[in-house]
């Protein structure tokens, strides 16, 4: 069997979902930056989870996977064909058929099975998105992963396992590609809606661990962590993970706050509201403070400096961020009305 590779332009990006969307749209002839996709899709968020579904308390800094794509459909009218499969065979047949037609679909996988990534990154997270852009001569797949510098080959067994890993948010072979891109867009309306929804998500969801409330819950609960850890080394690992979740898991730094600042600067031009430039600067400063927290966590983990007082100090800093972001989103909601 001879190999095929579609003329897909590989681009590294900060985040897998927005990066994949951006390069999918680019393949179909529409240039839309990652930051703009993130903003219009209301990607910014916060949530703190402390329940049986997680081995240790954890937090998220972005909205539910897939939501950004759905929001793009709602706000810009871009239509995507999406499909889930019952069996791996069906999923592979469909993938092969699409590639034969010249369509490189994006697919959802478990991070763990992406053999080309370094081992320290490969954990079981079911919400990674990659583009499949062709097949090699040996029948393996060519992958454009925005965390990897170039297009890379992945064994078909690994792709299969990644697409059909079970567990929470199981991918079930999910794949998508754009089928319709409108000729004209009402960017102003879309950006306005994206910001409004982000403000709503951060401030008004009536669930005590989502949005700003989640931040406060995190800040209060972090002092309990020593009781939940297996031993001191495990606690150190969990505290270091604060840094990994905020900086390393495709957030563009400081838990997407820098990416959102970039979006707000672009939004100021699109909405012709120069006061948003000021908001963008404030978000950048807010991101810097988040980064200070994550660097502090990394150093605490490294030095095994894990006393309850120190954790309380981190909690106080997170409380401060919650206050700042609460004020920020309240004021932002008024400006974009």
């Amino acid at each position, binding site marked *: 069997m001879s190999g095929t590779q579609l003329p897909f332009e590989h681009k*590294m*990006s*900060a985040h897998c979902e927005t990066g994949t969307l951006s390069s999918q749209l680019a393949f179909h002839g529409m240039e839309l930056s*990652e*930051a703009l996709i993130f903003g219009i899709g209301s990607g910014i968020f916060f949530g703190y989870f402390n329940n*049986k*579904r*997680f*081995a*240790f308390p954890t937090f998220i800094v972005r909205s539910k996977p897939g939501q950004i794509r759905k929001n793009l459909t709602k706000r810009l009218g871009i239509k995507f064909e999406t499909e889930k499969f019952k069996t791996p065979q069906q999923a592979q047949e469909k993938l092969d058929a699409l590639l034969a037609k010249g369509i490189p679909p994006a697919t959802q996988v478990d991070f*763990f*099975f992406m053999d080309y990534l*370094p*081992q*320290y990154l*490969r*954990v*079981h997270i079911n919400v990674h998105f990659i583009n499949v852009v062709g097949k090699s001569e040996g029948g393996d797949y060519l992958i454009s992963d*925005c965390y990897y*510098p170039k297009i890379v080959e992945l064994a078909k067994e690994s792709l299969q*396992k990644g697409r059909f*890993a*079970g*567990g*929470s948010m*199981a991918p079930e072979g999910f794949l998508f590609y754009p089928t319709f891109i409108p000729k004209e867009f009402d960017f102003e309306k879309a950006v306005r809606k994206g910001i409004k929804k982000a403000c709503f998500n951060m401030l008004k969801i009536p669930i005590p661990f989502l949005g700003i409330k989640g931040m406060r819950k995190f800040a209060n609960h972090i002092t309990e962590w020593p009781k939940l850890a*297996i*031993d001191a*080394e*495990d606690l*150190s*690992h969990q505290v*270091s993970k604060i*840094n*990994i979740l905020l*900086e*390393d898991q495709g957030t*563009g*730094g*400081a838990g997407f706050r*820098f*990416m959102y*600042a*970039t979006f707000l*600067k672009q939004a100021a031009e699109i909405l012709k509201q120069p006061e948003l430039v000021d908001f*963008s600067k404030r978000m*950048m400063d807010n*991101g*810097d403070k988040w*980064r200070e927290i*994550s*660097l502090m966590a*990394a150093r605490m*983990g*490294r030095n095994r400096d894990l006393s309850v007082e120190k954790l309380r100090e981190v909690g106080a800093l997170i409380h401060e961020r919650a206050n700042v972001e609460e004020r920020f989103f309240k004021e932002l909601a008024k400006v974009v009305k």
Partner: protein
Amino acid sequence: MKEEDLISDYKVQKYILYAEKNDGSYGTVEGGSYIIENDLDDFWHKKNHLEKSLRERLLNNEITPIYYFMVLEEMTVSELASRAGIAKCRVKQHLKPGKFATARVGDLQKYAGAFNVPVANFFQMVLTSNDQNSKYHFYHQEEAAKDRYSIAQTATANAVVILTKVEEKA
């Protein structure tokens, strides 16, 4: 974040980050990760410490192989049950040393799929000369390079049999 504050001389991994560029505009820049560039050895150390303490308990028959892998991969019972396709109450049984022997080979194959290890590795620890589980996913790469022997496991047409080959490195 300012562009000049980034780790620009990254050696291990390149990331795309967002920052205030030197010309004052906001956008993407290339940089390295603080943890990966500075603390990767500590990361391995912690992972190996966890592996060793679990291994000790496993060898003393305090935990089962399923528990060993579940904790190492940071899974919960419900996550593992869903990934392996085994009922939660059965998984709970398989975590008790007294009840592990009631597990069927078919169950073990399902667990093996979820952990991405051969079934045989539930019944053996393949240790290297520097006392590490050579077949654990988070095995220290630099330590592995120091080892005199390489241990390769290859799947066979028989789903429950694996070929384990120990070879002296050239």
